[in-house]
């Protein structure tokens, strides 16, 4: 059955979308960019980072573009001072939550969090840093998980479940105590379910998951590979 066509306005411009698309998908299909962080093309959107928030006429609430479906006649604003302010606050809170020391990080210069902060013009953070004491899991022979750099986007969780089918990663606890854990809170090296495919590493937007042995700035993620793999396999998000 052919999908129903919808008419939507994005930043004043009339575009046509398809029923079932999210605002983000519709925007992208029409060459419009909305900032995202937890989203990775091909994986189920979860709305974790709140960077993609947009305004919708007729309501005061802000909506994440990655999880909100388009509706006929919808009028969406993706750029406004209010949105910029909210996006910046979200990013700053990500920075204070854990220990993001870019200068000593393998992903320095290739980090989506860092790039997004640069794009938003963040040079200082207005909130007090949390400085949690967090472990680095070096038990896997090839990869390393550094909780200090994790922003809980859950791309690793989703890519492992949806694409590799291994379901190794999960999120434990709640709120600020949330952590990525492997195989019922085992050390990564002991996680029997892990196939060592490395998809989680490539999907991770920061230096939280990295290949071992790289020096500062050397870890370049290939998350395009993940998206093209999804397309080739026809996995439905």
């Amino acid at each position, binding site marked *: 059955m052919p999908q129903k066509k919808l008419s939507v306005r994005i930043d004043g411009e009339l575009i046509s979308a398809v029923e079932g698309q999210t605002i983000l998908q519709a925007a992208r299909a029409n060459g419009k960019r909305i900032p995202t962080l937890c989203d990775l093309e091909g994986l189920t959107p979860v709305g974790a980072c709140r960077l993609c928030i947009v305004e919708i006429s007729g309501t005061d609430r802000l909506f994440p573009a990655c999880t909100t479906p388009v509706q006929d006649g919808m009028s969406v604003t993706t750029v406004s001072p209010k949105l910029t302010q909210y996006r910046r606050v979200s990013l700053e809170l990500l920075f204070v939550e854990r220990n993001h020391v870019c200068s000593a990080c393998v992903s320095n210069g290739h980090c989506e969090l860092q790039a997004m902060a640069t794009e938003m013009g963040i040079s200082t953070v207005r909130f007090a840093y949390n400085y949690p004491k967090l472990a680095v899991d*070096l038990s896997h022979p090839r990869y390393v998980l550094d909780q200090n750099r994790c922003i809980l986007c859950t791309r690793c969780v989703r890519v492992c479940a949806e694409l590799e089918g291994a379901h190794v990663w999960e999120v434990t606890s709640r709120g600020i105590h949330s952590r990525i854990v492997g195989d019922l809170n085992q050390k990564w090296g002991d996680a029997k379910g892990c196939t060592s495919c490395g998809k989680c590493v490539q999907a991770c937007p920061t230096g939280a998951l990295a290949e071992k042995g*790289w020096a*500062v700035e050397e870890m370049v993620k290939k998350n395009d590979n993940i998206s093209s793999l999804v397309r080739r396999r026809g996995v439905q998000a």
Partner: protein
Amino acid sequence: MKRITIDPVTRIEGHAKITIHLDDNGRVTGTEFHVTQIRGFEKFTEGRPYYEMPGITARICGICPISHLLASSKACDAIMAVRIPPTARQLRELIHCAQMVQSHALSFFYLSSPDFLLGMDSDIATRNVLGVIAAHPELARDGIELRKFGLQIIESLGQERVHSSWIVPGGVGSPFSAHARDRILADLPAAKAIAERTIAFFKGALDSYKEEIEYFGSAPTMYAGLVDTPGNVQFYEGGLRFQKADGEIAADHIPAEDYANWIGEASLRESYLKAPYFKPQGFPDGVYRVGPLARLNVAQQCGFPKADAEFQEFHQRFGAPAHSAFLNHYARLIEIVCALEKIEMLLNSPQILDKHVRATAGVNSLEGVGMVEAPRGVLIHHYKVNEEGAIVWANLIVATGHNNLAIGRSIQQVSEHFIDGTKLHEGMLNRVSAVVRAYDPCLSCSTHANGQLALRIQLRAAGGELLDEIATG
């Protein structure tokens, strides 16, 4: 009893304070050198992957990050139990020599030359690098050019001027290009000419510093530095040699991993710096110095023709070993000559463009020590890791740490000679600061933090009341 405090000492890298105690007649009865920052790198690197250590520890210092990268990467090489490709070794030496040039140029031209070009007693408002540019534009320009030459090599190899991450465990990040090599070779003659001009100028002016040479930390001490098997000065490779104050070799060719058998570290009450000493001699008799003067003292020669001619002249004039800390400035210039000759040799090496520059391996040893000569002297990184490669323990011994006690003694000597507490003036106190600068201490390195540079000198009576105060921004 009165007390003078110099806090902080200016034109050094980092933050330090000096206290001078005077008796009622204004004579110096004692001095203390306090390093007022705390180091924390050993603590907060616990749990980090060992291969991150070069990147983390390089951030200790913006002046000599290359030294930390090298010492740290060598320690990591040892943990991986690899022998790095020969070209990687040469490239590491090349960037290290470039750093030696730029760091020594910074110390000589920017930080210390105001004292000896403008005078220890000259107006404090202009006694800085800007004053030098105004009074001696030629020399100032030379200094800037020479530093730029070193920085350009660092940039062309490491892609960044200050915090390059090109030196990595197992070797270096990428091979060298013929284009970059040829550019450096083209600039080399000008750099050599500057080095020769400056050293000729400095030798001509030496007679005006007789008093400084005599009283600036001239008490004999032991020395330590790296040498190769025939006894040439080494910056990157080589074993550690200890020399007694009379010139006799006390211990020789000590490999990095044996350092702890020879070097003890004493904690001091008045400073966050620990005081290393030569173990067989005990503390405090085993106090030794490291750095440019120490390197020229322990070695038989530099191993390059121009530098060796200077080396011989140096020892003919001031003896072997030469003891005055003021001569560090002279030694720095000789080392610049030596480093430039070494750069030339390395650039002309047939292997320098080879593409094999990185060895890879996992954890093959639970402990590793890396030792190099930083511009300010011997630098040691020592790590212990668990089976997974997480750091469980780290110890860094930094050049200024080795010199800690000697700096204290030099301050005492200078204070006794130059300070008269009955008529205090800034020039006297500048000499006290200048002796510290002669060591070019990097206190951000040795305590692994940083601070502001401003000068406050207070003269206090025994009861603590303020008698006199001189301050600068």
